[in-house]
């Protein structure tokens, strides 16, 4: 029997679901977390809701997504409250046990744990060991991308990946800037999710390998080139049946007609997917350090401008970004 999700959305792709997202920390009138679960106000009608680990898994079992996420106790990564952070980390481990026990379709749906522990390396290690011991099909590193410094972010990712088993997917939640993606891959991460490519499209920004262009800038009003020269996305590609989208037309409609947001979304998502395709090809060819050097050279004409956090993070995995070797 098809699950409800098969009926609700016709899907040629994998679907990953989560019931409680980090965005809720910043967006919602939130949320009291007790051992029982998360109490929060419904964003739809303001009524109080209770989300328990069991209910979270039951919902995701019903939806029938391919990857389901545990319910975790997440608070702002940069929280200075060490005691609360430890409580959240330990509770996330206990909730994982409840999620595993409640999971009805372990053969068809993959439950991922989520490593918590803020920016405290020792707490992250402890959490990682506990989570790995529970042997879920995949492992997520959570609670990041919440305003922490990039060097802290990299340190935490590397701390976790060093302790993770080789043959399980490692998912860093909420990561999306191109620099963050390529550096995280070097630090041992496999998969990511982020709203940024489409959100920034709605704000009128185009991602290119030479940086992000704000197409709302009036200098693009008479720019009749593609969003990015050489790009193969549906907007930029040339040849038979090409759409022939110009920066000028996108500029003409940014913040005025939704079509510009659609066009920039098409371009930006293609950019991100193509970036990861190039990343995979470079890894297979055993040329990832050279790929990284080229990637940063495209973004910054002067090596002195390379972001220090990226240089340092890559040095931790023995890649010298400023080396002249290609």
């Amino acid at each position, binding site marked *: 029997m098809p699950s409800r999700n098969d009926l609700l959305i016709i899907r040629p792709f994998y679907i990953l679901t989560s019931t409680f997202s980090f965005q809720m920390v910043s967006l919602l009138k939130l949320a009291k977390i007790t051992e029982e679960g998360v109490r*929060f106000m419904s964003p739809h009608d303001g009524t109080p809701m209770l989300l328990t680990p069991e209910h979270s898994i039951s919902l995701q079992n019903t939806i029938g997504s391919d990857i389901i996420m545990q319910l975790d106790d997440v608070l702002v990564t940069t929280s200075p409250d060490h005691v609360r952070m430890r409580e959240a980390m330990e509770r996330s481990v206990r909730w994982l046990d409840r999620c595993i026990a409640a999971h009805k379709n372990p053969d068809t749906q993959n439950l991922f744990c989520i490593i918590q522990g803020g920016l405290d390396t020792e707490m992250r290690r402890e959490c990682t060991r506990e989570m790995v011991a529970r042997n879920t099909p995949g492992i997520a590193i959570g609670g990041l991308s919440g305003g922490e410094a990039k060097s802290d972010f990299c340190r935490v990712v590397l701390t976790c990946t060093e302790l993770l088993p080789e043959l399980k997917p490692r998912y860093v939640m909420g990561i999306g800037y191109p620099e963050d993606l390529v550096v995280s891959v070097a630090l041992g991460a496999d998969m990511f999710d982020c709203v940024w490519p489409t959100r*920034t499209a709605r704000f009128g920004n185009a991602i290119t390998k030479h940086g992000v262009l704000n197409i709302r800038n009036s200098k693009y009003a008479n720019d009749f080139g593609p969003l990015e020269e050489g790009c193969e996305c549906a907007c930029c590609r040339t040849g038979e049946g090409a759409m022939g989208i110009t920066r000028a037309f996108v500029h003409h409609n940014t913040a005025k007609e939704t079509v510009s947001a659609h066009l920039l979304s098409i371009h930006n998502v293609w950019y991100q997917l193509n970036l990861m395709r190039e990343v995979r090809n470079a890894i297979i060819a055993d040329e990832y350090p050279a790929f990284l050097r080229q990637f940063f050279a495209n973004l910054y004409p002067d090596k002195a401008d390379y972001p220090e956090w990226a240089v340092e993070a890559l040095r931790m995995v023995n890649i010298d970004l400023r080396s002249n070797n290609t």
Partner: protein
Amino acid sequence: MATPNSDKDMRIIFRTVNDFIANDGAVRLGRLSLPNRNPVDTPNYFGLTSRGAVPHMTPDNISKHTEIGGVYIAIEDFLEHSRKRAYPAIYNIDVPGKEPLHAYTATPSSMVTILGARRNPAVTAPSGNGRNYISIFTSTGFQRLDTENYHRAIENVRPDIAIPLADLTFNESKAYSNAKRQLRMVERTEDWLAAFFKLRDPEDTPRKTDHGAHIFGPLLPTDFQTQWEYINRLAQDYAEKLSGLAVYDVNILPDLAEYSSLTHLPRLSLDIMTSPHDILRQVQLGIDLFTIPFLNSTSDAGVALTFKFPPPPNPAASILPLGTDLWSVDHQTSLAPLAEGCECYACTRHHLAYMQHLLNAKEMLGWTLLQMHNHRVLSDFFAGIRGSLGRGYAAFEEDCARFARVYDTEIPKGTGTRPRARGYHFKSEGGESKINEAAWENYEAAGSGDPVVAAEMAGRAATGAKGEGKETPVVPEGGAEELDKKGFAEIDK
């Protein structure tokens, strides 16, 4: 562009396939054929654009998922004032082998473009038109547009079809009921048209000459008595320069039968219409081409059109609705398509429950899918009209009568919120409330919001070197105790 062909009258773009004796031969099946564009069988409709785009649809989706053969574009969407630009950007584009209007708006090259001065429907200009100009509404405010500048715009952007200026106020209630105002409208439009043709063709060369855009002469929203002299002039002096007629009030059409030099021209309706019943009435009066203003607004309202022509058998004899309000919670678990039997992209891949979800989540995809569906319903509707006419005028009359019996008179109004309306969609009056209530408020009372998102909105993409060098900020101000005192994480205030 097509090469001039001396054997062929370049002006003629329309052939009737079948005229009907009824209504003095006004009603006909026809075909509009322009060089390098796909032919369009009529009666049919063209898409209405906003700022050169069919709302919510990217050009690839228009090619793949609609059957529209052409679009109506308003020049007022491109003429905004800018201190940084001497000329509108659209004048500067130069793509080999493409007309600037097609190239700038990325309109698929198989599709016909019709250029008018004003959007349809147009926003009423408070100051009205002048002796030599009309008021247009750009995204930077009202401006004047005179015949000379409009002529220059047409030369620059090279539409397939252009409608010359007419002295319309788009204010039904006041202007058109005033006899003096009506007379002035006719006089001005006649003067402007003369000036327009003079600019296009100072030598007044004989017919069969290619002067670029094909011209659809405007027929005005007055009774025949008021504009008969103007129509005489169209028929006698300008018939050879016209490729079609732009009809602002279809009630003039019965009086047109007398003018044999005008009857063979295709007629584009820019008259008001609010339902498919109006379309059928206008077809019966002899309209060949439509722009359907209610199509975009119906999609924006979250309503899926459900009517068919000829109407389906209706044994229950109940009144069928013209559309379905997709916001209704009735659809929350419905796996039915938007309209039974529809073969559009949205109906074959999705269903009411998903559409209801998308609208409630305010996902832009909802409106995109709705546009695909509603355009398909309209295309099928016109195919049905042509099929019915193909069986003879009596069959068509019979189908129209049955349509009027079977279907409700009005399209249902959507109950939910709309996509954001912009200044060029309407002119706001003082003290009006917002169309849509804000769905979300910032958690932080001061409204500081997420600094990363704020930076993105301000056009500073928060990535790269700018984002580094900062220590991890201590985000919540104060410790846990203080936060607790302030009521952090409490459910009741």
